[in-house]
C-alpha cells in the first residue's frame, strides 16, 4: 500500500510536466498526392491541387458564409480544391503552434494581429508574391508588412468608433459628438452625463493596452522609438495620456472603476442605458441594434493633439513549408480582395472586407443603425497601428497589467509606466 502511494505521488509529479507539454496535434496529410503536381508547374492553371486552410474567424456563425465563398472561388478556379477547417478561437493558437512546430501546418491559415508578428519574425511564414494586391486597402496591407516583405493579407478589418447614447446626451443637454471632438469635449460631456444619476456614467474607455497605445498616439506618444530599437513607454506624452485615462476613473469618476462595474460587461452597461459614450469596435453594431431600446449613433473617435483611431485585422498567411504556395496565394488573395467574397461578407454582416473599392462597400453604408455609418470609413484616415514586434503578447501583457494597477489606484501612473518600461527592457530584446 505504501509503495503504491509513492508511485502515485511520483506519477502525479511527472504528470505535471507531461501535461504541460503533451499537447498533441492531429497530424494531417496536408496536401495528399496532388502536392507534387502543384509544385511541378509554374502556373497552377491545369494540374488539380488540394490545399488546406485553417481559420477561427468564421467559427460561431459564419462557417456557411465562408463555405459559400469557397464555392464561388472553386467555380472560378476549378483546379484548386480548398479543405477548410474552422477551429474555435480559444483552441486555435495552441493548435496552430503545435502544428507549425510539428511540420503539419496547413498550407494557409489565419492569424490575428497579436500572433502575426511572432510568426512572421520566427520565419515560419512565406512571403506572398506574384498576386495582384491592388484591390486591397493599403493601410491594412501595411499592417502585415514586415521589413518590406508582405507576409499576410488582411482578410477583414474592423476599427473603433465612438458610440454614444443620444437619449442621455439629450437629457444632459449636451450637443452630440462630432468628428472634431477632442478628449476635452468628451470630458465635459461625460461630466454632464455623470451628473444625471449615481449609477449613470459618462464614458467607458478601459485602461487597457489596446486603448492606451491609441490614446498615447493622440497625445503624440508611442510605445517604441521611431526606429523601433528602444521602448519609450514612460515618455512624457504617454504619461499624460495614461493620466487622462486614469483620472476619468479615479478623479472625476465619469468612468466606473472595476468595482463599480462589478464584473458587468462594458457593452451590457451601454445597452442598459446607463452609459453615455463607449469607444468600441464596429462589430458591436449588430448587438447594439438589437439590444438598445434608446437612440444611439456613432462618431469618429475624439483626438487630443491629433487624431488616432484603432484598427484590427486578421491576416491570411501562407505556411513557409507548404508545397502549394501558389495555389494558397491564389485562394487567400481571392478571399481577401475579390468582389464576390466582399459582397458575401457584407451581406452576412460578418465584418468589413479590407478592400479599397468604395462601390463594393456601398451596401454597408445603407444599413442602419447607426445613421452616421460614414464615420467608420472616415476613421480610416487616422489609423494607428500597434508595433509589430516579435514579443508582442509579452509587451502587451506587461503594459496592460501595470495600467490596470494604476487604474485601481495601487500605484501612480508614472510608477506604472516606469515599471512597464523597465520590465519590457529587461525581458524583451528589440531587433
Amino acid at each position, binding site marked *: 500500500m*505504501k509503495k503504491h*502511494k*509513492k508511485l*502515485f*505521488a*511520483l*506519477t*502525479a*509529479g*511527472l*504528470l*505535471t*510536466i*507531461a*501535461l*504541460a*507539454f*503533451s499537447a498533441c496535434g492531429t497530424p494531417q496529410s496536408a496536401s495528399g498526392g496532388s502536392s507534387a503536381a502543384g509544385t511541378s508547374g509554374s502556373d497552377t492553371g491545369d494540374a488539380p491541387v488540394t490545399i488546406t486552410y485553417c481559420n477561427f474567424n468564421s467559427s460561431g456563425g459564419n462557417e456557411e458564409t465562408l463555405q459559400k465563398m469557397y464555392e464561388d472561388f472553386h467555380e472560378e478556379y476549378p483546379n484548386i480544391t480548398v479543405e477548410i477547417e474552422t477551429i474555435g478561437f480559444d483552441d486555435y*493558437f*495552441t493548435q496552430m*503552434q503545435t502544428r*507549425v*512546430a*510539428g*511540420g503539419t501546418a496547413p498550407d494557409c491559415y489565419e492569424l490575428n494581429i497579436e500572433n502575426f508578428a*511572432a*510568426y512572421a519574425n*520566427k*520565419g*515560419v511564414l512565406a512571403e506572398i508574391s506574384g498576386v495582384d494586391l491592388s484591390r486591397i486597402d493599403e493601410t491594412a496591407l501595411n499592417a502585415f508588412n514586415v521589413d518590406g516583405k508582405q507576409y499576410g493579407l488582411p482578410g477583414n478589418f474592423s476599427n473603433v468608433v465612438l458610440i454614444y447614447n443620444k437619449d442621455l446626451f439629450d437629457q444632459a443637454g449636451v450637443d452630440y459628438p462630432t468628428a472634431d471632438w477632442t478628449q476635452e469635449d468628451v470630458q465635459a460631456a461625460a461630466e454632464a452625463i455623470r451628473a444625471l444619476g449615481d449609477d449613470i456614467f459618462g464614458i467607458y474607455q478601459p485602461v487597457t493596452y489596446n486603448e492606451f497605445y491609441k490614446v498615447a498616439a493622440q497625445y503624440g506618444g508611442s510605445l517604441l522609438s521611431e526606429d523601433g530599437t528602444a521602448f519609450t513607454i514612460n515618455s512624457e506624452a504617454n504619461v499624460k495620456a495614461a493620466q487622462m485615462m486614469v483620472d476619468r476613473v479615479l478623479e472625476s469618476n465619469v468612468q466606473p472603476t*472595476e*468595482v*463599480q*462595474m*462589478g*464584473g*458587468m460587461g462594458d457593452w451590457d452597461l451601454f445597452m442598459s442605458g446607463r452609459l453615455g459614450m463607449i469607444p468600441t469596435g464596429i462589430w458591436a453594431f449588430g448587438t447594439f441594434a438589437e439590444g438598445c431600446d434608446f437612440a444611439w449613433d456613432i462618431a469618429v473617435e475624439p483626438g487630443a493633439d491629433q487624431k488616432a483611431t484603432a484598427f484590427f485585422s486578421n491576416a491570411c498567411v501562407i505556411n513557409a*513549408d507548404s508545397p502549394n504556395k501558389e495555389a494558397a496565394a491564389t485562394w487567400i488573395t481571392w478571399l481577401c480582395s475579390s468582389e464576390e467574397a466582399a459582397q458575401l461578407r457584407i451581406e452576412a454582416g460578418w465584418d468589413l472586407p479590407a478592400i479599397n473599392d468604395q462601390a463594393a462597400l456601398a451596401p454597408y453604408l445603407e444599413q442602419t443603425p447607426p445613421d452616421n455609418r460614414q464615420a467608420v470609413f472616415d476613421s480610416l484616415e487616422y489609423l494607428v497601428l500597434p508595433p509589430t514586434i*516579435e*514579443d508582442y*503578447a*509579452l509587451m502587451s*501583457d506587461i503594459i496592460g*497589467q*501595470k495600467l*490596470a*494597477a494604476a487604474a*485601481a489606484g*495601487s500605484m501612480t501612473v508614472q510608477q506604472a509606466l516606469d515599471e512597464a518600461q523597465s520590465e519590457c527592457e529587461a525581458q524583451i530584446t528589440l531587433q
Partner: protein
Amino acid sequence: MSQPRKSRPGRLRQGGLRTALPFLAPSLAGMLVFSLLPLLISACISLTDWNGLDQLLAPGMFAEHFVGLGNFQAILSSKEFWQVLGNTCRYIVLYIPCMLAASLAVACLLSQPRRGVTAFRVIYYIPVLTSWVAASLIWKSVLSPQYGALNNLLAIFGIQGPGWLLDEAWAMPAIVLVSVWKDMGFFGLILLSGMIGIDKGYYEAASLDGAGPWARFWRITLPLMTPAIFYVLIVSLINAFQLFPQIMIMTDGGPNGATQVMVERIYKYGFRYYRMGYAAAFSWILFVIIMVCTFIQMKGQERWVNYDS
C-alpha cells in the same frame, strides 16, 4: 512458483512480472508515449531557447538553440519567479488547512447513520464532477463585488464585502474559497472511507470507559484516519502546486499579478509568449519543488501516520 516457500523474492517477482507484463503493456505503452517521452523531450527543450514554432525535429535544431542552463539561471534570478512562488505558497498555506477542515467536516457529516445521507453524499460530490470552466464562470459572477450573490448575502448581515477577484489582497483568498468548495466533496469522500473503515469495537470500548463524542473523535477517529489524511495531503499539495484553470478563467493572473502562479506562467511563456525553452525549464523547477515537498511528506509520515488499524 511450484515451491513458493523456497523461492527467493527476486525470482518470485520475476515470474510474476512475466505474467503481468502482457496485461501491463497497453497502459505502459501509453505511459511511455504520453508521459515519459514528453518528459524527456521537455528536459531537452529546457536547455534550449526554442520558441515553440520552429520545427523541433529539423536537423541542427538542438545545437543551434542550445543555451545550457541559461533558462534555469534566468528564472531563478528573476524577480517574477520568486513572486510567483510566493503567490503559489500563499495559496497552499490558505488552501490546505481550509480544505482539510472542510473535508473533515463533510466526512463527519456524511458518516452519520441517518436517513438521506446518501443523497447528501451525491450533493457534496456534484462540484467535483462539475468542470472547472463552468464552476469558475459561475463563481466569477457570484464573487462580483457589486451584483454578486456573496456580497449581497453579506450585506444582509451588514457586512460590506470586499472586491474579491478585483482586489489584490482578496483575489487569492477568493480562489481558495472556490477551490475548497470544489475539492471538499472529493477529499471528504476519501476521508469518509477512512472513517468508515475504523473498527466499531474501539468506539464501544471507549464508550464503556466513559469517553464523550469529542474524546472519541480526537483519540480514536482522527489517529486511525491518518493514512487517509496523509493521502489527502499528498494529493492536495500536488494539486495545489498545479493550480491553473480557476486562475485562467477567474483572474488571468490579475489583479496586478496577485494571482500569477507557476503553471499559469508556464502556460503563458510556452503558448502566449513563444518561449517554450523557458517554459520547459520553469516546469522542471516546479517538478523539483513538488518532488522535494512530496519527499519531505513521505519522510515525515513516520512521525504521525498510524497504520495500526
